[in-house]
């Protein structure tokens, strides 16, 4: 069963509209209350008066929730810096109260009727302003190896530069949704679109002043998560639960797209200042950098995101001397959070940008420069972990060069570019090395509950959540393989905190590794108990008969499985250790064509070889690779978060807060020719059935597109000049880069 190409386990439900999401359950539940937020129209302000009484004049309004209603802790996070009901508005759109109505219209009108007086306070919107004003929060990690000053001094070529690049809105198609109810015993039941049911449970419990065993959270499935539902759902679930607790009725919280975009965190934008040294051979000698992430108004997951950024600034490259400082800016924006890659993409963007900018100045082709700097097997990363299987990256790289006809096409492109003054093409190849496991060692545990019923049918629960990534499909395959049963004998039940407790977020690409190993453990426990029965009855005994006899023999037919990733260590204070079980590798080559009149471009061909170990489920993995790649292309080229940075009345307002203004890739952005292969002979002995995690790493294959754009832009100007490219590289950004290239002399500064 493992390794078979199967459609998503719920595909037939998806396509027929039968698959239920949290708010579909709400739509089928009569008599529930609807919640609507009162959103502040200031980036930073003190609330001087909050009068909810006018809302009660609106027909249908049942209750208005404010800080005074919180029986437990008024906090929506785990760091006690995210008041659920604030007295100080920290970003434009911050919810200061919630109105419950018999229908959404009455709740909406009630929210409009709530009167709030604000005393506006100075606000910081731009990351560079936060840096200038030293507005920072949280830890200031430093990653250090060797002697960076000596390394720079010994380098033949030293360059320095800066880059600021944008974050990204998750834009899961399903916005945040929760549905809460209270039973006769005061038990709270919250259905929630959450990647982290356990933490949702904990936040709901502490807001309500309850213990965890009084709160159950269930996640049926999510309409996309991408990290945006790792920490962000908790507050909304708490609002629903608080409303249910106070009214005794079912309460639904479901954000509109604009509410979701203006209230929830996004991928962190970063600023980086760097100084790099190369030897005459193009080998990296030293890198000194300061990375500042835009954390928004509260810490949220900004610290671990920053750690991962620092741990991925090397990407695939050996850098002997390195000193990287990390800082988290506090700005008056949404609290930026996890997003597929979790800082890894941001760290890698910095080094890929450096190599792309410096290659022309070194007189070395960018692809050659990259390959010259690859790690070799067991060379240590800056944080001290040996790079196991580095040769696989080299193998994938060569495979892409070969199958994409890279050298031949580059010659063709050069000829085309010589002849066409208005349209230039670019071709680039980039690597991905991505560490798998949560940096924080304790999170690397998974749990499962496997039931074998008397009729031989099997029911699995595990701690992971399904957001479209195919985790449940893989878990069914793992269980069927472990028990040696046909797939239709195994069923999977929705994720619930009363089935598998104390779970980690389904995040860090680790869902299949952790939960798969736990499911396998549970299955193996059951098989071990069945073994004596099988021995007695003979090896040919049918599964159903075996189970029936085992039951009569009083054999326990269910088991709790558990897994903790072995061999991990991490010291956050020194930024050293072996935080990752293994590295996932990938290589992409991309070709683009850029229109010189407008800066508009097309991605014409992409070749990818990606390492998923021995694939558990090839169709699922292929989907993750392609989808992650396109999402990365969106981040780097198209998706454009714009906040109002004026001093006007809507300062701090997210200007791109809807689907009409925030553009994610549509099928028009799909590469004309997309070829994806899985790296062969790539089994990893450390993970379940030799497989590797696949959720996040492919996103970073998209750097090939950004670097191809840089190559194409360069073709508009003289050889040997560095090209600076904004991120996202929108058509406008590409146009300005072309104008700069056209007016630039060769061998300019970076």
């Amino acid at each position, binding site marked *: 069963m493992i390794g078979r190409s199967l*459609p*998503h386990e719920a*595909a*037939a*439900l*998806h*396509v*027929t*509209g*039968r*698959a*239920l*999401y949290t708010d*579909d359950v709400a*739509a*089928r539940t009569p008599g529930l209350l609807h919640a609507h937020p009162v959103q502040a129209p200031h980036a930073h302000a003190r609330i001087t008066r909050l009068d909810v009484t006018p809302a009660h004049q609106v027909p249908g309004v049942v209750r208005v929730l404010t800080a005074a209603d919180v029986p437990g802790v008024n906090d929506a996070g785990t760091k006690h810096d995210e008041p659920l009901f604030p007295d100080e508005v920290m970003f434009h759109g911050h919810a200061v109260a919630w109105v419950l109505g018999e229908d959404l219209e009455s709740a*909406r009108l009630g929210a409009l009727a709530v009167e709030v007086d604000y005393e506006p306070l100075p606000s910081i919107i731009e990351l560079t302003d936060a840096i200038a004003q030293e507005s920072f929060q949280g830890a200031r990690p430093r990653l250090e190896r060797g002697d960076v000053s000596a390394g720079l001094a010994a380098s033949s070529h030293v360059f320095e530069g800066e880059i600021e690049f944008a974050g990204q809105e*998750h*834009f*899961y*198609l*399903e916005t945040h949704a929760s549905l809460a109810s209270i039973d006769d015993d005061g038990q709270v039941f919250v259905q929630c679109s959450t990647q982290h049911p356990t933490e949702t449970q904990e936040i709901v419990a502490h807001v309500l002043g309850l213990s965890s065993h009084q709160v159950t959270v269930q996640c049926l*499935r*999510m*309409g*996309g*998560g*991408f990290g945006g539902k790792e920490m962000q759902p908790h507050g909304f679930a708490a609002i629903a639960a608080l409303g249910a607790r106070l009214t005794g009725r079912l309460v639904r919280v479901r954000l*509109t*797209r604009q509410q979701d975009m203006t209230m929830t965190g996004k991928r962190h934008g970063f600023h980086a200042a760097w100084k790099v040294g190369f030897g005459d051979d193009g080998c990296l000698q030293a890198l000194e950098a300061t990375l500042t992430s835009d954390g928004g108004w509260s810490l949220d997951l900004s610290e671990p995101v920053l750690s991962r950024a620092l741990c991925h600034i090397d990407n695939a490259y050996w850098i002997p001397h390195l000193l990287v400082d990390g800082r988290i800016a506090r700005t008056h924006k949404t609290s930026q959070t996890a997003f597929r890659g979790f800082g890894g993409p941001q760290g890698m963007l910095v080094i890929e940008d450096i190599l792309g900018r410096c290659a022309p100045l070194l007189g070395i082709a960018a692809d050659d420069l990259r390959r010259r700097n690859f790690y070799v097997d067991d060379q240590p990363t800056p944080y001290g972990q040996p790079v196991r299987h580095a040769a696989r990256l080299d193998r994938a790289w060569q495979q892409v060069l070969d199958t994409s006809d890279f050298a031949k096409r580059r010659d063709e492109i050069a000829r085309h570019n010589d002849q066409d003054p*208005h349209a230039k093409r670019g071709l680039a190849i980039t690597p991905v090395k991505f560490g798998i496991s949560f940096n924080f060692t304790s999170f690397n545990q998974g749990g499962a509950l496997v039931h074998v019923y008397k009729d031989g049918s099997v029911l699995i629960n595990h701690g992971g959540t399904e957001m*479209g990534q195919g985790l449940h499909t893989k878990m069914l395959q793992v269980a069927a393989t472990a028990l040696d049963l046909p797939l239709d004998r195994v069923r999977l039940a929705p994720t619930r905190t009363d089935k598998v407790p104390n779970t980690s977020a389904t995040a860090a690409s680790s869902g299949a590794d952790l939960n798969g190993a736990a499911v396998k453990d549970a299955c193996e426990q059951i098989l071990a108990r069945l073994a004596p029965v099988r021995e007695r009855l003979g090896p040919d005994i049918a599964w159903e008969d075996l189970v029936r006899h085992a039951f009569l023999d009083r054999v326990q037919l269910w088991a709790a499985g558990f897994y903790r990733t072995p061999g991990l260590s991490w010291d956050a204070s020194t930024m050293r250790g072996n935080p990752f079980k293994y590295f996932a590798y990938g290589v992409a080559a991309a070709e683009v064509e850029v229109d010189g*009149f*407008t800066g508009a471009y097309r991605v014409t061909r992409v070749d990818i070889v990606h390492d998923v170990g021995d694939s558990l489920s090839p*169709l699922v993995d292929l*989907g993750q690779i392609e*989808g992650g*790649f*396109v*999402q990365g292309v969106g981040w780097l080229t*198209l998706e*454009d978060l*714009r906040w109002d940075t004026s001093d006007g009345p809507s300062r701090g307002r997210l*200007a791109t807060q*809807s*689907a*009409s*203004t925030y*553009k994610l*890739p*549509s*099928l*028009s*952005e*799909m590469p004309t020719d*997309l070829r994806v292969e899985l790296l062969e002979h790539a089994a990893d002995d450390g993970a379940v059935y030799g497989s590797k995690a696949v959720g996040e790493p492919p996103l970073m294959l998209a750097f090939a597109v950004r670097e191809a754009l840089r190559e194409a832009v360069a073709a508009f100007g003289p050889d040997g000049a560095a090209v600076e490219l904004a991120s996202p590289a929108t*058509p*406008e950004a590409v*146009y300005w880069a072309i*104008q700069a290239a056209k007016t630039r002399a060769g061998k300019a500064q970076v």
Partner: protein
Amino acid sequence: MSTDPAANLPQAPVTVNGTVRSLAAAGPAVNALDWLRGIGLTGAKEGCAEGECGACAVLVARPGLDAPTEWTAINACLVPAAALVGQEVVTAEGLGTPEALHPVQAELAGRGGSQCGYCTPGFVCSMAAEFYRPGRAEFDHHALSGNLCRCTGYRPIMDAAAALGAPSADDPLRRRTTAAAPLTRPVRLTGWVRPGSLDEALAALDGPGAVAVAGSTDLGVEANLRGARPALLVAIDQLDELRSLEVGADFVEIGAALSLSEIERQLAGRVPLLDEVFPQFASRLIRNGATIGGNLGTGSPIGDLPPALLALSADVVLVSRAGERVVPLADYFTGYRETVLQPGELIGRVRIPQPLAPMSAFHKIAKRRFDDISSVAVAFAIEVSDGVVGRAAIGLGGVAATPIRAAAAEAALVGQPWSAATVQAAAEVLSGEGTPLDDHRASASYRRAMLRESLLGFEARSRLDHREGA
């Protein structure tokens, strides 16, 4: 008007997946999506509530061009539920079941076309509309231009589309296309009226707070995102008087209530400039609802049709109970979202004078190729005789409070030789037209640059075409 055309329709019937349902209980502010979800059909989803993501797409049976009935995909989130009265609707649930998948569903499911599955029912409906399009030779990817997927990267969805065969002869939805479309009948509900004639519509529009609605692709956004709740909606999209299209010797005249999809197919390439606009105008889902009259009626400073229609020197024929008047489109826009339209007045037809200028082009500058709003839109219609520019009309969107003609740039071209030098000079003039702003779509300086580059690019391509044609 005292007739109550809905008196014999007590229960506001809508046929959904073959079953007659009543929407009498739905209030006037309820959109089709919320109504469908409220009766348990939760396959259609809200992803954006502004017709951008297509998660809410459903099929409606409409009069067809190549068959008596065509299954047309629309955004259910934008359309008032009341607009469905008397109509036939099919949702993803109605196409197939997990045990008996529809061909579109089977291809999508089997090829990994769904991951999280939230956008999937909408894709299924958009894809099914294309599946049933009469005379379809191959799958037109523009059918999916209004559907967003955040998970797959689209490749398996495109593969599923490409793998579709033709509907089988006994496919009930295909058979349905051979019978007449549902009759359009007058309807009157609280807050909603579908008049039986233009005269009745004009009478209804005289009432307080009455607003005309056709495809509702703009009004639906106002309702969903900004809480617009007009007192009375007067549906004009099915009025025969507003749905004619005539190509004459002197004019091409287009009825205001024709959807962009209908216009595209009925014109069949006879106005090449508009043919360049259509595939770039929003998405198929929107074009199936949005009308040419609505596009001008909203008075957007960008639009995409207005710059093209300005370049075509179009007139609008306005109708009211007092009669008709003809206004040049260049005089129609009076300010930001303001026009010469008087209360009680409707756009009846759009009139494009013939003959058309032989050289034309539409340049849309946007971040995304499909379904994006222009930061700048430029339309050219130019005639060159004996190497000299005889006439030049340039329409611009996105550079002023209204769509405008680029009068100074036109003057810099007319009477001059069609040469690189002329175009270079005129392009500089063009870049100074209007008063472009900095906003989240583009900077003012990029907008100005794009005005200039659009003319340079137009000239470069016309030379290339000339060479290749020679």
